[in-house]
């Protein structure tokens, strides 16, 4: 078993800076934007992107979290997962452009669950997807709008994202 680092802290912050600019560009500014991170590690990523967009535009972007545990289609195949809090900004998501933020995009099933969860909370004008690492192997017709890094991987490999808010350091590594 070998572990190889594929992104260091400078790579991660560059990727997040670029994603932030791309979000501003495609949204034509920071208006009507809501960032929702998918727990666990999508939440600090969403907060970092929101802070960067705030720095670049001078506007405050509402940021929250959306837990998808209760909407997963694989609950009965795994040990029981403990849900995480969902925090929707007070301004709500109706009519807004919601950007979902997650660390790794793999099968796409978490994102499908997140879309179902969003539907129970409100009706956004548009939903976009920002991902730090896209490792391929999609099982559903889901495609990210903003990608930090494309990381071709084999199914047997493990991609681990570590973030300083949770793990004390920023690093993406691949283990085979």
């Amino acid at each position, binding site marked *: 078993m070998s572990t190889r680092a594929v992104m260091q802290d400078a790579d991660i912050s560059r990727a997040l800076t670029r994603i932030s600019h791309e979000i501003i560009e495609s949204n034509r500014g920071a208006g009507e934007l809501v960032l929702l991170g998918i727990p666990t590690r999508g939440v600090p990523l969403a907060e970092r992107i929101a802070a960067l967009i705030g720095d670049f535009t001078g506007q405050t972007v509402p940021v929250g979290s959306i837990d998808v545990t*209760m909407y997963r289609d694989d609950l009965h195949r795994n*040990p*029981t997962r403990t849900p995480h*809090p969902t925090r929707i900004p007070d301004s709500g998501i109706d009519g807004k452009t919601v950007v979902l933020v997650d660390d790794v995009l793999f099968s796409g099933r978490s994102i499908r669950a997140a879309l*179902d969860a969003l539907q*129970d909370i409100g009706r956004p004008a548009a939903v976009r997807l920002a991902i730090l690492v896209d490792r391929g192997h999609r099982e559903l017709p889901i495609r990210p709008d903003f990608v930090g890094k494309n990381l071709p991987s084999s199914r047997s490999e493990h991609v681990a994202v570590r973030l300083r808010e949770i793990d004390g350091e920023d690093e993406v590594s691949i283990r085979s």
Partner: protein
Amino acid sequence: MRNLLDTATLSRADALRILDTAEDMSDTQRREIKKLPTLRGKTVVNLFFEDSTRTRISFEAAAKRLSADVINFAAKGSSVSKGESLQDTAQTLQAMGADAVVIRHGASGAPHTLATSGWISAGVVNAGDGTHEHPTQALLDAFTMRKRLYGDDSRGRDLTGTRVAIVGDVLHSRVARSNMWLLHTLGAHVTLVAPPTLVPQDVSAWPADVVYDLDEAIAAAPDVLMLLRIQLERMNAAYFPSEREYARRWGFDARRLAALGADSIVMHPGPMNRGLEISAEAADSAQSTVLEQVANGVSVRMAVLYLLLAGSTTTPATTSTGEERA
């Protein structure tokens, strides 16, 4: 977790997991769309051999909010009144494909028998058995206390240092027993307050103090005063001279409400005997959490059903770090 049978053997970690999951469930209950798809295709059977309104409806609401199918079974008007045994009833439910059985039974230990006898493979939730335990009531009470004490900051916290007085018919009360064990596990200090006739003979093994005078207990300024229902259906001996005398000496009335600190909360598991163990002034005061307890009951039972039913029955090892789940 396969079953929830009591709080005496519930670990602190499992208790906090249920309470924290209930916080997330409670958040979803404030949304316009309260229903979650989580337990679609699962069947929950409410097997009630004793009368109940709020517990059965609460479990039913919890199961339905999680999209499970609910089958209600009341012993009255069923084959049980023709003499069918618990085993045959349980195996009938098993054959119909129940994934979880919520059982209330007059005999202490009936849920334990159901869970360990091998009759059924479904998860078993104790919804009150005899004078033994009523674990979901204790969990919703602890949830309510935590919510009042810590508000939105409740997640992950226990009740260390909270002083709780449980007042009334401790002898017959499964609510008192479940609360005492759970509160002890969560670090709270429990005082039982009752007439000597309504305390079990030997409580030396219980993690609680016993006081025989309600005014003395109130003077000690507890953070929580929990009143128990006087179970008139179980008052088959002269435990106290008359209801009026009980109300005067042990009833929580307006005078005692005034003596209790304004920050202390007043709880009652319901149904209340107004004018007996609790006066209308106390029941309807801002310090009373009676309706919050009912609302929180649905969230806590959603959490219990979720934790019992959502996962696979086998438990392979998993990693909790940032592995790909997307």
